[in-house]
């Protein structure tokens, strides 16, 4: 009897969710099959967002951003979380919610939570002002508008405005974002990671004035990008051998592969007195400590 009453209550709470979500939730109550969780959570999100963005939720793309793409603000997030808590019979602390920015974040967070795995490392989000405050590159040569730093990777984005000066000539009457600048953007994201990331391989504070490009390998470009395109950048830290740090980089746009670099290597110096960059850039007197 109790189960039936609970099920009725559950179905009522989820009545505006898609049918498969309701069935998944009912089944989850019985079998605790964590593979049902994404269906449940996506359906709950779909129920709360405006009708025009529901198709985006259904695409189930991990990189879909909660606020920018789905219009989920902090209050709406609370409503979603309340229904998730009620449905999955779990409790979520406000503290744990911060840093969840994409559908993928929510899914991996809940996955860990339900399976009792350690929660994903909290990521650090940086807005444009914060990025501009720490980066050696500045306007008009800063190709990073916001960024999220995780334990061993960083994500960021850049929207091609169309008013970048070089687009006037690259190419004349046919503005295409240069591949070299894409590589630069990935390099900048890697610089940001070196400056603000928290990884045990980076023990000492990196000096923002002494990070330089060292080399890259295995670079492929798959499509061109034009004004209005939104570049999703990602760099993953592969290894650190001071004074070098090695990353893998990739760029996506609208879910399509844009560019990939097997390896991007940067040289860096820490703020502790050292002579690393002298070795690499021996004759460059302006950067001597």
């Amino acid at each position, binding site marked *: 009897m109790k189960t039936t009453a609970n099920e009725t209550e559950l179905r009522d709470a989820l009545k*505006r969710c898609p049918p498969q979500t309701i069935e998944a939730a009912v089944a989850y109550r019985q079998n605790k099959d964590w593979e049902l969780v994404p269906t449940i959570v996506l359906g709950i999100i779909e129920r*709360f*967002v*405006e*009708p025009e963005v529901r198709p985006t939720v259904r695409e189930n793309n991990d990189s879909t951003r909660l606020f920018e793409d789905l*219009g989920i*603000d902090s*209050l*709406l997030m*609370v*409503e979603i979380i*309340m229904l998730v808590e*009620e449905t999955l019979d779990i409790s979520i602390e406000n503290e744990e919610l911060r840093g969840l920015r994409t559908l993928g974040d929510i899914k991996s967070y809940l996955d860990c939570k339900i399976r009792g795995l350690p929660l994903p490392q909290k990521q650090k989000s940086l807005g444009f002002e914060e990025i501009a405050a720490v980066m050696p590159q500045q306007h008009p040569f800063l190709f990073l508008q916001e960024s999220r730093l995780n334990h061993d990777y960083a994500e960021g984005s850049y929207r091609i405005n169309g008013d970048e000066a070089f687009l006037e000539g690259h190419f004349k009457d046919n503005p295409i974002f240069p591949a070299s600048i894409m590589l630069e953007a990935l390099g900048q994201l890697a610089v940001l990671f070196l400056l603000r990331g928290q990884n045990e391989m980076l023990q000492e504070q990196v000096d923002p004035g002494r990070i330089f490009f060292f080399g890259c390998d295995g670079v492929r470009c798959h499509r061109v990008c034009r004004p209005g395109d939104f570049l999703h950048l990602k760099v993953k830290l592969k290894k650190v051998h001071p004074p070098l740090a090695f990353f893998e980089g990739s760029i996506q746009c609208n879910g399509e592969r844009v560019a990939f670099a097997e390896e991007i290597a940067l040289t860096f110096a820490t703020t502790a007195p050292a002579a690393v960059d002298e070795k690499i850039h021996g004759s460059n007197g302006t950067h001597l400590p």
Partner: protein
Amino acid sequence: MRNVVVTGLGFASCLGLNQSEVVSRLKESRHGIQRYEPFLKRECGVRVGAPIPGFDTTAEDPEDWVYPEGLKLRLDVLRGLPPHGVYGFYALSQALEDAGLARDQVNDPRTGLYTASAGSPSRMYYNLDRMIRFGPQRCSPLGIVASIAGTLTFNLAAAYKIKGSTSGFVSACASSGHALGAARDEIALGRQDRILVVGAEDFSVETILPFVSMRVLSPSDDPDTASRPFDRDRDGFVGTGGAVAMILEAEEIAEARGTTPYTRFSGWGQASDGFHVAASHPDGDGLARAMQNALDATAIEPGAVGYINAHATSTPVGDISELRAIKRVFGAHQTPAVSSTKALTGHALSLSSIMESAFCNLAMRHGFLPGSAHISHLDFEAEGVDIVHESVSRRVETMMSNSSGFGGANVVLVFQQPG
């Protein structure tokens, strides 16, 4: 001091959702009162009410509410709204369209928003009940902004991106009169060019039935006669709700953009009874002084007032106070034409003052006086007061709208033909 004019009206009222319907129902004395199922179910001795056609906000979940198709509300807005917020959005959108105001004029820092509502007892009850039963963690995060007095201001100001003065007024049945008066002064003083004024009240069991224990609601079972201000046998008021929006603008601003105002909002007066928490002063002392203050403020001779839209709610005591107040200010047998449109609408509480002011604006533009319907036997106290029983075609230069609220607050607003 700048002149202030009325340039737009919007209605979500028991008399209809658009001006032409409201006008024809006022002219033809067709009321909006009916036997109301949610009241009947409670078996509390109150059977009739005046719901707002096209709206059904009885469901617990706002996403189940019914409202006119043309009204588009985002889901996250809807979940933070009380019933009167939905009416308010409807009325304001109509009024802005009527005034011909574009988005950028609404978003101008010289445009403000004043509202009047008592908050939402039904949303307050629903949200607190959930908090007590399931714990604070399970409350809707929008529960507070949907429930407390001020909800109408928060919601409309955010959705319409108002950048000028915003505020809400709470003086029970005088609330929207205070909102109008304060808005008028703000514009007259040059602090704002335009203020959107919205009065609204939930029509719900939770808003109306608490009046049962005060013994002020009509127990009548007959919608056609239940509300009958100034009738000898009146037995209480009939509850209604809804929303009315009125756009006030500086006359020069309205002129510059080529609109034809309904009226000039010439001024207003207020005074309090200093008497009782709920009952009006038996001789209408505060209301009489409020009328006198309104005349003084506008420098209008009593004889120049052509019509008074009375507050009269159809309660035995209140109507008498008002008749005495009118006679004291204007003199017996020298009063303007007087009627109470609450015979048609019932009493809309916080909304009533702006709703009745809007009726005055329609009557001024269309050249008629709305009648005081449902009077079979005129109360003897009305002797010497020119009560208009049926609507008549008559163009008057000056109208007054009276309102009184709990605590003895009285507000009197004066409208004149535009200059």
